[in-house]
């Protein structure tokens, strides 16, 4: 019996062995064709740099490059700081990078990245520079074509970057605690805290709104000295601006320092009529107090002038956003407003500024203490740009154009900018002054709805500005806001689910389902301007010299696979402009082109 069983077993195995397909059966001819076609000397090794947060994207890129005949060396850094150090040292061929256009205008999406003199640029191409300048002066209808050409130059022709995808923005809200209708999710701008309310309005003063951000080391609480994830949300809520962006990136005066704004004919003059119901707040004994000092036109002029002046502070990180401004001044002559016509329309600037005001504009005053809206005494600020540049309004809505107190900043920043010593001098907004401990000496003057009281390594505590439009619908609802520093997205999600935080901005794509299936959570989704792309080394690697090699890498990228991996929760991108302007360009993976370009590269 045993023998028969054995024979049967053997027969079965033989039959099964006949059935199975081997790897070369499956991909036989294709494979052998490839090896013949590849026929060069060895594989090209590409070093891919990224952070461990981008590990999944790196794996997809690695896989795609390997399948296209490259060898890939991964350089994974644990955090953004060490990633940046590696990138600055040039230890990469391609770096996984991302860019979010927080101002919501296409100029910002290209200026600092691709212009020869941009803060984040490693590209030196006069044709690119020309196109960026040309597009900046054009209206949306005109610049579509220019940006299309620019994209083609950057990606298709020269392959300075290889685009991967556009992300969505998603935030999870604990709807047991918060009223989800009061929580905004804007495409570009940072979240506004003042509108957020509890389900139970009685808790407004008793409980704190607890939210989260990844980075706990704050670059600077001086709005012009930082433009990154560590301070964007915080400074947005601490400093009011002349205008704001709506959730779909329209420039409006709602929730800003101005009642109205108007663009003068010729697109170089921009007028803002200021509110009189916001005072600066400061922190005393752990509480926010009204300084009695109004946020007025002199503060606006001071703030914008230092924003555009590269040398106003050491380590100025945002001047390139504001370089387009030539002059900022207070308008006191009402006749000037009467004479000025509005751009592309009927009527004077005065009419546009006066629209919907409680009392008519009867007088323009220079001194902010003399302004009184109910009596018709207003302050008006005029911004003049060097050239016609309608997108300047987007920059004025950015957190770096936040209004600071002239008097306070001047009294703190007494050091000499050229001889600034980071160990000795303490500039306005230095995070050391708000960090618990010996260096604590909170000197902040907040013009926005909230003010930072103190921070440590785990959280930052904010309280509402008592003199911020008190009694109006824009008065901050919740009196205390706590921002927890939780670096890892999965930990943040856990914190949201167990009720430790009420609001989590940045739910990972692969976890949407978890939030949606949780009864006490609501998931809000919106488009975003965040584009992830591969940046080629522009300095001293092979990829910097060889356009063919860059293109071989570019055409290895298959965006459909990214979309698959993220379960459709990403969109295709062509450049950092893609989320802002529909240019119609698309990157299509093409293994045949990869081979072609690789062969050309080898022939070089």
């Amino acid at each position: 019996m045993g023998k028969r069983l054995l024979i049967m077993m053997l027969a079965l195995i033989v039959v099964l062995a006949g059935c199975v397909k081997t790897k070369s059966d499956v991909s036989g001819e294709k494979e052998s064709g490839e090896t013949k076609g590849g026929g060069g000397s060895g594989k090209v090794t590409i070093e891919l740099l990224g952070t461990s947060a981008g590990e999944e994207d790196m794996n997809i890129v690695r896989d795609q490059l390997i399948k296209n005949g490259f060898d890939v060396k991964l350089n994974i850094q644990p955090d953004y700081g060490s990633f940046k150090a590696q990138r600055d040292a040039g230890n990469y061929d391609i770096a996984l990078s991302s860019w979010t256009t927080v101002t919501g205008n296409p100029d910002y999406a290209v200026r600092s990245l691709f212009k020869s003199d941009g803060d984040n640029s490693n590209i030196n191409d006069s044709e690119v520079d020309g196109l960026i300048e040309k597009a900046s002066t054009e209206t949306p209808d005109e610049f579509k074509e220019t940006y299309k050409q620019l994209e083609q130059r950057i990606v298709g022709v020269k392959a300075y970057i290889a685009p991967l995808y556009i992300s969505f923005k998603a935030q999870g809200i604990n709807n047991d605690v918060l009223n989800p209708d009061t929580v905004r999710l804007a495409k570009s701008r940072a979240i506004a805290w003042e509108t957020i309310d509890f389900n139970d309005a009685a808790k407004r003063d008793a409980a704190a709104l607890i939210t989260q951000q990844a980075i706990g080391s704050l670059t600077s609480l001086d709005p012009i000295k930082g433009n990154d994830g560590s301070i964007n949300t915080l400074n947005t809520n601490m400093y009011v601006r002349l205008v704001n962006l709506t959730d779909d990136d329209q420039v409006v005066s709602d929730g800003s320092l101005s009642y109205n704004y108007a663009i003068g004919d010729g697109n170089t003059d921009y007028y803002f009529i200021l509110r009189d119901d916001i005072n600066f707040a400061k922190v005393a004994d752990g509480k926010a107090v009204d300084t009695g000092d109004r946020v007025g036109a002199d503060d606006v002029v001071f703030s914008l002038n230092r924003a555009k002046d590269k040398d106003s502070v050491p380590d100025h990180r945002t001047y390139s956003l504001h370089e387009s401004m030539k002059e900022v001044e207070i308008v006191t002559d009402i006749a000037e407003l009467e004479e000025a016509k509005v751009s592309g329309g009927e009527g004077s600037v005065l009419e546009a500024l006066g629209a919907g005001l409680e009392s008519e504009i009867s007088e323009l005053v220079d001194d902010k203490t003399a302004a009184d809206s109910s009596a018709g005494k207003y302050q008006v600020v005029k911004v003049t740009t060097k050239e016609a540049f309608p997108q300047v309004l987007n920059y004025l809505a950015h957190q770096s154009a936040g209004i600071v107190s002239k008097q306070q900043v001047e009294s703190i920043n007494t050091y000499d900018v050229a001889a600034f010593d980071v160990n000795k001098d303490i500039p306005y907004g230095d995070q050391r002054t708000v960090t618990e401990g010996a260096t604590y000496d909170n000197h902040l003057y907040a013009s926005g709805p909230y003010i930072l009281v103190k921070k440590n390594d785990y959280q930052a505590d904010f309280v509402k500005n008592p003199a911020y439009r008190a009694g109006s619908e824009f008065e901050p609802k919740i009196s205390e806001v706590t921002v927890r520093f939780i670096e890892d997205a999965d930990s943040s999600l856990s914190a949201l689910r167990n009720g430790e935080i009420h609001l989590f901005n940045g739910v990972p794509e692969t976890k949407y389902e978890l939030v949606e299936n949780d009864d006490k959570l609501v998931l809000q989704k919106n488009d975003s301007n965040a584009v992830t792309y591969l940046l080629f080394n522009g300095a001293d690697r092979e990829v910097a010299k060889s356009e063919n090699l860059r293109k071989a890498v570019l055409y290895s990228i298959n965006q459909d696979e990214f979309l698959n991996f993220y379960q459709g929760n990403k969109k295709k991108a062509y450049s950092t402009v893609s989320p802002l302007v529909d240019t119609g360009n698309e990157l299509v993976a093409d293994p045949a082109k990869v081979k072609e370009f690789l062969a050309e590269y080898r022939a070089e």
Partner: protein
Amino acid sequence: MEEKLKNRHALAVSREYPQANFTWIISLILSLIFLGNSFSFKTGDMNMVLFAFFIAYLTTALFQFFIAWRMKHDLLGHGEIRKGTRRLGYVQLISLATGNVFAAAFAFNIINKRKTPEYTFAVYMFLTQLFVIAISAMNIFKPYVTDTFPVAMAVLLGIALFHVAVLIIVAKSVKEVEAPRSLGVVAVIVLLTAVTGNIFALLLGWSLLLKSMSNDRSRIMKWNVMWEKITRNSMAAMGMFFIILMLTISVVSRFTFDYDLAVANDYGNILQQPSLAYPFGTDNFGRDVFSRIVFGARISLIVGFASTVIPAVIGGFLGGIAGYYSTRTDNVIMRLLDILYAIPGILLAIAIIAAFGANTMNLIIALSVGSIPTYARTMRANVLMVSNYDFVDSARALGTSDMSIIFKQVVPNSMAPMIVKSTLTIGGAVIATSSLSYLGLGVEPHIPEWGNILRVGSTYLESHSYLAVFPGLAIILLVLSFNFLGDGLRDALDPRLD
């Protein structure tokens, strides 16, 4: 009356009866695990495959309980297990089809009354081969298999058949202290089959050679006693079985598994539930978790072994020198090692990885450096003891050089605790490897390593728990196996327990 007392004693000293009980209990537990997993409490659905496993294991457990009851009856009534009861073992062999290695090992054990170490080796050698074939055979459900698969499987099957033959020959002809001379040839062929990584074949071949060629009865007896002690401990034997199975699978997987399935992304098959084609499901990149775990065994074992052997050799050498020579040498070496000992091992490893980058070689070095002092201490303590023995004095009197005394007389006689310690710490090394990978400090994330696989799984714990369960189980089983084997080795090698 006296008869009864004698029979009670027979029950108490029987080695097979506790194993019988152990087998039915563990089969019952496994069946309950299958039952628990076959029913989904969320949806109320039944998983028929798992339920079938539950039935099969329950049947095995019940039958095993019956055998155990018969054995107790036999022992109490007759003072020995009767032939009829032993024959039940043949029936229990069927449990092999369900993959119940505990019941199968017991069945092989009960069938043969005369148990030589060779018989045990042959049984486990065959079981290992069978399991390797079964695991490799899972590949036929895949869309395609690797090119060498048919040939490799044929070779494996051939070896398995040969192993069955050897098993029968060994059961029939090998005696307590001697074996027919003709078995020498068989022994050599068995030794050759050990290239698949099947260490049991190596042990069997060596043992057969020893018995068929050597006349040194005391040496053979010593060998017999040692292995009897190890294999008497069911858990140690099972641990050894699992380790060797993993080792064999790591060697054989080179020819029977396709590495691309474990590393190449397949976006069409992302996060698939376990199925025949993907026994452990697929991960977030569509990679087959089963293949990844199989290939991961290789790295875990290599790093585990290497990061145990390296400090054992270096620490053993330093400890040997320190223990043998005067206080000054001793002090210098041991105090330096104390400094190293003061740095937490895992932190040192993290620092080394952070400084020199993450790859397998650095991982081995990082894990090795930290455990040198403990090995040195163990060795030094033994050398201090052994170097006072008479045979060392006589060697010294004969004018043998110090180095020769240390490495020919002292160290070999101090090895037993080192071996035990190595086996026990190898599990720790496997965990450390996985921990570092889990923290993102081990090998590159796409490389199939158990810690890496677990890391991906941990983020899908709620929605796709199998991604974490299987690599977790693999780590647990391997570490437990090393610990059980270590315990068994200690019992067998420690003179104090004699």
